[in-house]
């Protein structure tokens, strides 16, 4: 398959590109296996695929760059007619930054911590002699304004650690755009961001790209995001193009079976009724796990209270066999809550009850049986599995430890558990590094299951996974819930995932529970203003969604400021579109229950009716 269109007007032409890895003393491994596509002026081309598809490698080729260990092995990359594989070092340096600019996934890592932002933003333009330092600084300030960055006159004088992640991401866009490149390469620029931030950044990118008229390559695995920004989509798998076409066509009418599969894995927008909620079922006398009035944080202050409080007065109940989704942005304390439950972080106030009896706050003091019943599944399977232990040992250890299973019996049991998480038995002899991301996450789950727990604490278990893989893991979790009857605490920043899996949802903001209740109730009015913002921020898989959403007042409110945990008042006060000056910032909001009777609570100064509810009862 070759792209036959070959107008010289193309900003970038990639013909039959091949890139291979050349490991030390081993035969080369092809990574990109003959990829062709063009980028026209002003066009945004999305490269979409899972990890391992070669999308980042291809995008970097536009800068004539390969990651260490990788080498060009064929084809050509023509940037405005110049072959980036062949140009001299001198010329390559000139082209980079001036004609083609790169935006990386994590701005926090790609900004040099030791240099001021302004210097880094203008560096390329000044170095290449495109403009004077003054002109570049001025241009940068214009871009800061265009990107809606706060304090545009002075932000350049700050160091990277002094601004927030979302701001850094936009600053990186400024860095790429400052010398007016004809091609921008954006490598998953919003993946690491919270949804509310992502929408901001997307909006800013889109606006600036349009204004500047530059072409762009947009690399991502998130089709919903792509739909908002791309004109043309290239679907990649295993270093080959599966399908390419206009964004409209790919989104609405995918041809290739891989593309179809990709589309199928995209989580629908979070609306009520997605999941197979079991609200009301399974209710017994005693909840499996209960968190009462917990306050927790890090460091030890003089009065026994934590130096930095992360959670304040949190109450959560996990009924037997239920899935409780905990949702919130990064830094809201959702992982901390799970750590408090597991005893990894002792709460400074309040208590954790298992089957009705209070657990000691710290894991050190808890009994082995209690530990066994509450299992923690870590977010990153990469770091949660000891790289030096075999899968069999990893899964077998809880069996040995809690249930004293040994020898042949142990091996049998490990096999059974591997089977439960849909992994072949031969994996028992492998090391984590030999597994893919999804497989590792399954092992991570299997280890927790091996303990035969009552409650499984899943901390962002799908966040690091690609769409398809993540969807598969959710399927697996559903199966497990049905098969084993354990309760789940499912922590995620992704409302869609929670919507499709949880029975109940707890919405955390800045360490406080702002809303909780059965999933369908939470996802339908009345909403806490923050929940409303969250729901509105989840991108939908249709072209034009971004523009529509940006009109709504929820999105306008979403401009990310620093999230701070306040001692008094509502933490969402400064972002809230319906905030009451003088009340919300001074008084801790009351807990209101809506009249549905399903146990749907909202913490807000506004009445339930004001929040879209049919009526309200006074707080208990």
């Amino acid at each position, binding site marked *: 398959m070759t792209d036959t269109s070959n107008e010289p007007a193309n900003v970038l032409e990639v013909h039959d590109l091949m890139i291979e890895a050349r490991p030390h003393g081993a035969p080369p491994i092809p990574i990109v296996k003959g990829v062709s596509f063009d980028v026209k002026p002003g066009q945004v081309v999305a490269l979409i695929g899972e990890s391992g598809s070669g999308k980042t490698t291809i995008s970097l080729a536009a800068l004539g760059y390969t990651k260490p260990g990788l080498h060009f092995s064929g084809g050509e990359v023509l940037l405005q007619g110049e072959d980036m594989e062949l140009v001299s070092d001198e010329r390559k340096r000139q082209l*980079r*930054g001036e004609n083609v600019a*790169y935006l990386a996934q994590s701005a926090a890592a*790609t900004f040099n*911590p*030791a240099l001021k932002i302004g210097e880094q933003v203008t560096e390329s333009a000044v170095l290449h002699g495109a403009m004077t330092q003054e002109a570049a600084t001025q241009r940068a300030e214009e871009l800061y304004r265009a990107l809606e960055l706060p304090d545009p006159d002075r932000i350049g004088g700050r*160091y990277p650690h002094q601004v927030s992640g979302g701001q850094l991401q936009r600053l990186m866009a400024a860095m790429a755009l400052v010398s007016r490149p004809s091609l921008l390469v954006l490598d998953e620029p919003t993946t690491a961001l919270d949804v509310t931030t992502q929408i901001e950044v997307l909006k800013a990118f889109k606006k600036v790209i349009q204004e500047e008229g530059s072409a762009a390559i947009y690399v991502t695995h998130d089709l919903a995001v792509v739909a908002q920004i791309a004109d043309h989509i290239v679907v990649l798998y295993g270093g080959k193009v599966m399908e390419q076409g206009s964004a409209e066509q790919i989104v609405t009418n995918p041809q290739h079976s891989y593309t179809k599969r990709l589309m199928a894995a995209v989580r629908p927008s979070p609306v009520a009724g997605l999941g197979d909620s079991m609200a009301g079922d399974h209710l017994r006398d005693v909840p499996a796990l209960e968190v009462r009035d917990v306050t927790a944080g890090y460091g030890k202050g003089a009065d026994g209270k934590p130096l930095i409080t992360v959670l304040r007065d949190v109450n959560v109940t996990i009924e037997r066999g239920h899935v409780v989704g905990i949702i919130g942005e990064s830094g809201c304390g959702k992982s901390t809550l799970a750590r408090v439950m597991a005893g990894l972080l002792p709460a400074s106030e309040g208590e954790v009850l298992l089957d009705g009896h209070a657990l000691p706050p710290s894991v050190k003091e808890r009994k082995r049986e209690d530990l066994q019943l509450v299992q923690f599944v870590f977010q990153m399977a990469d770091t949660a599995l000891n790289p030096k232990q075999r899968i069999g040992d990893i899964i077998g250890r809880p069996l040995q430890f809690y249930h004293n299973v040994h020898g042949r019996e142990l091996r049998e049991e490990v096999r059974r558990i591997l089977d439960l998480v849909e992994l072949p038995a031969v994996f028992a002899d492998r090391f984590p590094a030999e597994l893919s991301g999804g497989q590792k996450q399954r092992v991570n789950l299997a280890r927790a299951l091996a303990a035969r727990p009552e409650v499984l604490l899943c901390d962002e278990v799908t966040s690091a996974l690609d769409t398809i893989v993540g969807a598969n893991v959710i399927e697996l979790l559903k199966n497990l819930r049905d098969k084993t009857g354990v309760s789940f605490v499912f922590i995620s920043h992704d409302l869609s995932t929670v919507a499709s899996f949880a029975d109940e949802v707890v919405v955390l903001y800045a360490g406080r529970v702002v809303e909780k209740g059965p999933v369908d109730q939470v996802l339908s009015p009345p909403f806490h203003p923050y929940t409303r913002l969250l729901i509105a921020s989840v991108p939908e898989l249709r072209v034009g969604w971004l523009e529509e959403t940006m009109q709504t007042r929820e999105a306008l409110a979403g401009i990310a400021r620093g999230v701070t945990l306040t001692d008094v008042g509502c933490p969402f006060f400064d972002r809230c579109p319906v905030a009451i000056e003088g009340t919300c910032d001074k008084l801790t909001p009351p807990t209101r229950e809506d009249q549905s009777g399903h146990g749907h609570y909202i913490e807000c100064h506004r009445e339930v009716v004001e929040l879209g509810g049919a009526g309200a009862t006074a707080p208990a």
Partner: protein
Amino acid sequence: MMWNMVLRRIGVGIVLLWVVSVLIFALTQILPGDAAQIRLGQQATPESLAALRKDLGLDKPWYIQYVTWIGNLITGDLGISNAGGATISSLIGNRIGNTVFMTAIVTLIAVPLSVVLGLLAAMYPGRLLDRIITSGTLGLIAVPDFFVAIFLILFLAVQLGLVPAVSYLSGTESFWKSIYVLALPIGTLVIVVSAQMIRMTRAGILNVMSSPYIEMAILKGVPRKRIILRHALFNAIGPIVNVIALNLAYLVSGVVVIETIFAYPGLAKLMVDGVQTRDIPLVQACGMIFCSTYVVLILIADIASIMSNPRLRHPK
């Protein structure tokens, strides 16, 4: 935040000095034989020994000796040499200038040299220049320093007669004449410490070089020189300053071999002589000087790396 950290480091440094003083005192107590014995040597008789011991205060219990010593130390009194009867401060005074001079000259030459060569090697990793620098420094690290010294003496002083073989300064020489006289020990030490510093500079830079922001700089078309000097060096300052501090401490205290071979009267050789003559006050004083030098240098390096970290210098 930054000043808190700096103050904390200084506090730790003071605690460390106290631990060091205990360690030094304990170590000097385990030395067998005493100054009286050593001083009288083959001709010792029991009476002369007893007389000399009483004279030197060696008959008092160890804790009295420690308290007396530490008290005097704090008031700046280093005591009297057990061996010759001279004050320790005069013995040290005779030498400290030499040590400081040598350390200063070697540092002035070696530090810029090492940083430049380390940077050059890091700038062209795997290329010929880098290979020459890395293998050269490796070869020099691998050979005992006394071998390097004797080799230089034989070649440059004995064979070619370019420079003197002993570092004998009368104290009246001009600055340049002093440098000439000290050329060989300076050369040897520059070789010995530079080899290490070059390698550490290179390693420090290359360590930083795997950061995403370096890749970003490459992708921005930033030239090699600027990547190294502006992007990498700033972030590698901590480890580089640390290795410089360690080498300075070595120059003050660890150059016994060089001082012996070149007959250069510095502090390290004084300490060795002190141990050999069981001149406990001298050993203790030298020990405290060496350890304090180390503590202070490391402290400076720590503070420098705290200062070079914008996260600490400009808190949010």
